[in-house]
């Protein structure tokens, strides 16, 4: 550690999953200086689809056409659910801001409306979601109307079988055809990787050869569905070229993670926060976090940067996620919050963490474990008081939600980040860096 005085920020965001990225983005949008610590590896597992709220109540498996009506139902059924604690106008503003920023970073979404949309998955199920990337949106229309449609896959891309999707839905969608082609230049490779294909399709010649291979297969197809490999940063250009070349709408179907849409989302978010001046320490982790009550500042000691680093922030947003994100850890006896040892609301014993049926309607109790916060998104200590006046918690580390079953992962991340940043801005009084 050097002897130089530590850099000072308005906000330190710990975590770089969807919630951490949203918090950093919203902090910057509000003109707050921000440092973000942590890598965005979790986002690689994203599909690019932005769920808001699809199912409520989960135990009844009730799907909603409108996420806002679902939110109203959630507010009645589960007022303690983090999403139910965010005002609807804030949720709308948060999503609009998010997709606008992503669009500016090259990842464009279809306009958000009042409705959820249904999309195809790689295993032939249907998924209810909200924000849909432009490269996938023609699939929503195709699924609605079910015209003659062609699904194509590439031999060697193991997790995506057009035939599987067509067979799974074929009896309900008779015009759904499937074909398999060789990816140009990869005829001798046993295994193809989506990211490699996406990069290859950014090269004009490979793209043109692929389109030429698709053309004779079109026949009566009104739309063409492909695995999500239509370019990385240049998805807009690649997708447009496929539509122009084939003369019909083309849509991507997200593949198994880690997928190209995850890579795109991570790249777009990184670019969006960096462009807004957020200082990113994506290799670093927080070794220690201390709060100074007199100065009203938190000190973060980082490791994973050469020589270590100490920074000071006036507010801290904890967006460290759950078990895969390492925000929570569990031993045989109990669940702990990893960084500060904050109290975690949790089931009494491990025997009750999980249901005996993996897909049980009511979900696993441990998924609703997490941090309790006050109305201002501040995690509570054992006595039920905020741990520190400007320590906030957002995203999936929060208790009283099961995002995997409710289909609200992105919504939880984006909405709670927005709401917490409202509180941060209020507390910091709109001042610049200290």
């Amino acid at each position, binding site marked *: 550690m050097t002897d130089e005085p530590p850099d000072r920020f308005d906000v330190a965001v710990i975590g770089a999953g969807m919630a951490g990225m949203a918090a950093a983005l919203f902090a910057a949008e509000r003109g707050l200086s921000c440092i973000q610590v942590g890598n965005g590896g979790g986002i690689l597992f994203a599909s690019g689809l932005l769920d808001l709220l699809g199912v409520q109540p989960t135990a009844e498996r009730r*799907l909603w056409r409108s996420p806002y009506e679902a939110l109203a139902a959630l507010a009645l059924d589960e007022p303690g659910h983090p999403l139910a604690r965010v005002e609807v106008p804030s949720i709308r503003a948060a999503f609009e801001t998010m997709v606008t920023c992503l669009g500016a970073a090259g990842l464009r979404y279809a306009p958000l409306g009042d409705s959820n949309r249904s999309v195809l998955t790689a295993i032939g199920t249907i998924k209810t979601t909200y924000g849909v990337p432009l490269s996938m949106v023609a699939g929503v229309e195709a699924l609605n109307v079910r015209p003659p449609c062609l699904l194509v896959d590439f031999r060697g891309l193991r997790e995506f079988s057009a035939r*599987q999707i067509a067979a799974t839905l074929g*009896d309900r969608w008779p015009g759904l055809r499937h074909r398999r082609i060789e990816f140009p230049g990869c005829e001798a490779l046993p295994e193809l990787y989506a990211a490699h294909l996406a990069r290859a399709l950014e090269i004009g010649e490979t793209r043109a050869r692929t389109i030429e291979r698709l053309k004779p297969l079109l026949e009566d197809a009104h739309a063409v569905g492909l695995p999500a490999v239509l370019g990385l940063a240049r998805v807009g250009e690649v997708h447009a070229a496929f539509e122009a070349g084939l003369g019909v709408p083309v849509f991507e179907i997200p593949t198994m993670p880690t997928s190209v849409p995850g890579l795109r989302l991570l790249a777009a978010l990184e670019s969006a926060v960096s462009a807004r001046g957020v200082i990113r320490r994506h290799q670093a982790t927080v070794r220690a976090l201390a709060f100074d009550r007199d100065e009203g500042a938190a000190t973060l000691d980082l490791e994973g940067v050469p020589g270590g680093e100490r920074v000071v922030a006036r507010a801290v947003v904890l967006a460290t996620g759950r078990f895969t994100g390492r925000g929570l850890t569990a031993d045989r006896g109990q669940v702990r919050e990893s960084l500060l040892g904050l109290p975690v609301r949790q089931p009494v014993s491990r025997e009750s963490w999980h249901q005996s049926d993996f897909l049980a309607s009511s979900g696993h109790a441990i998924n609703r474990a997490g941090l309790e916060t006050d109305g201002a998104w501040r995690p509570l200590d054992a006595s039920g008081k905020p741990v520190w006046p400007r320590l906030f918690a957002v995203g999936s580390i929060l208790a009283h939600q099961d995002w995997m079953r409710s289909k609200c992962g992105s919504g939880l991340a984006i909405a709670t980040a927005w709401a917490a940043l409202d509180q941060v801005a209020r507390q910091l009084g709109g001042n610049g860096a200290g």
Partner: protein
Amino acid sequence: MKFPISIQTQVLIIGGGVTGTALARDLALRGIDCVLVEKEDINAGASGRNHGLLHSGARYVAGDRAAAMECRSEGEILKRVAAQTIQDTGGYFVAVQGDDERYIADFASHCSRSGITARAVDIGAARALEPALSERAIAVFEVADASIDPFRLSLESMAQARSLGARLMRRTGVVGFEREGRLIRAVRVRPPGGGDELRIEAAQVVNAAGAWAREVAQLAGTPIAMTYSKGTLLVTHTRLASRVVNRLRLPGNADIMMPGGTVSIVGTTSTRVDALDDVHPTAAEADLIVEEAARMLPALATMRYIRAYAGVRPLVGAPDAADGRAVSRGFALFDHEDQGLDNLATITGGKLTTCRLMAERVADLVCRRLGVSRPCITATTPLPVAPECGWTEPGRSPREWMRSHGPHDALLCECEMVPRSAVDTIYNALRAAGDTPTLTDLGLRSRVGKGACQGTFCAPRTVAHLYQRGDFQARRGLAEIVDFFGERWRGQRPVLWGEQLAQAELMEALHCGLFGEELRDEELQHAGMPDAPRAAPEPDPADGKPS
């Protein structure tokens, strides 16, 4: 009323575990025609839910000398005739501070009285060879324990029996017996999918149903006294020792750790249970195993576990102690003649190590009753290697893959490196025998779903491949994935803490969060496509290749 279809055979074997399959092979080698009915799949019961330990016999020297000697001689035979199913790892018996000094002192002489070699090993030397052993070890003996793959043993026994004419009927449960005087005229069975009952007319019937032998005997009207002891085992993420490590004491909880290829297997517990339905490992049993086994191998306290499983030991005799450990682990052969039947035999109890001998004894009885004088040759006849049966062996897939992979043989499972060709071989062999294989069947016969990800990625990949082959149609793949995870989940649930909890969360994020498998029907309804417009799906067109 329809007249039920009848099948004729000389011997009907009920139960496809290690004993039933060994019996099918034994009889087939003696030229006897047999049919084996199994209500689930090969080794679905205790045969597939044990340590995979080929006992030297040393474990039983103090309490059950007969069982110890049987284990010794059978272990030696299997090492000769079924070498491909065995890893001759050797074993240690280890005592730690606080263990019974008297037992330790008597161990070597107990062993020698049973003809078992147990060599005292210097503790420092033992810890140099097996660094995972506790610093608190106070005595170590080396014995001839080995690891055996019970799936490969049963699959290859059955494969040879079938090559000699034996018939296997999987997913075929016994529903009743037709008796006439002192004979069973026919056994009624329900075929897969619950179709019309079939009658199997056999001159002799053998009940080799393991823990289910009591139910089968009851159906035949010849009750036997049995108790059930549930045993739970844990699978570690990485292998902790190269040898079998036994606790040097009277058999108790969590006192064996087996090498199982790339992993170690730790257990067991022993709990009396009254019913065979819904036997699954619990968190409390996992905790007991971790805590107790860590006294001998401290790293087990912090080890990542990927799975647990539980089996039910069939123990012959009346109920006694609560944990069932005092009941003999020897086997029992009932001829049922005193119960008024001359063509039924029940073989149960016993151990994996003695399965060949159990088959020999019952086959001898059956042959005597049939008037067949050909002797048993399984103690000297090598078990042939079958190409579709070796994929349960950890580490084989990567080897084969390195040797032979080409442009059209991608890996389906990356944890255990299972190539498409392995899945094809297994699938084709099942199909050739007239079966309709499931994803779970493939899991039982290969390493698919057995690695750290527990099928998160390889299950959908394998299903995609089966669609591509044209084997799966319509919505079958979804049902298979759901069944497969349902089955794997029972084993994961008790060990979900630490790293494996994060793995399970990822699995749920993918299969529920993204794929919405729990909503597979509701989402169809929601998308306005609740019913298929036609009864039959269109025939699948052939795959397109670029022109």
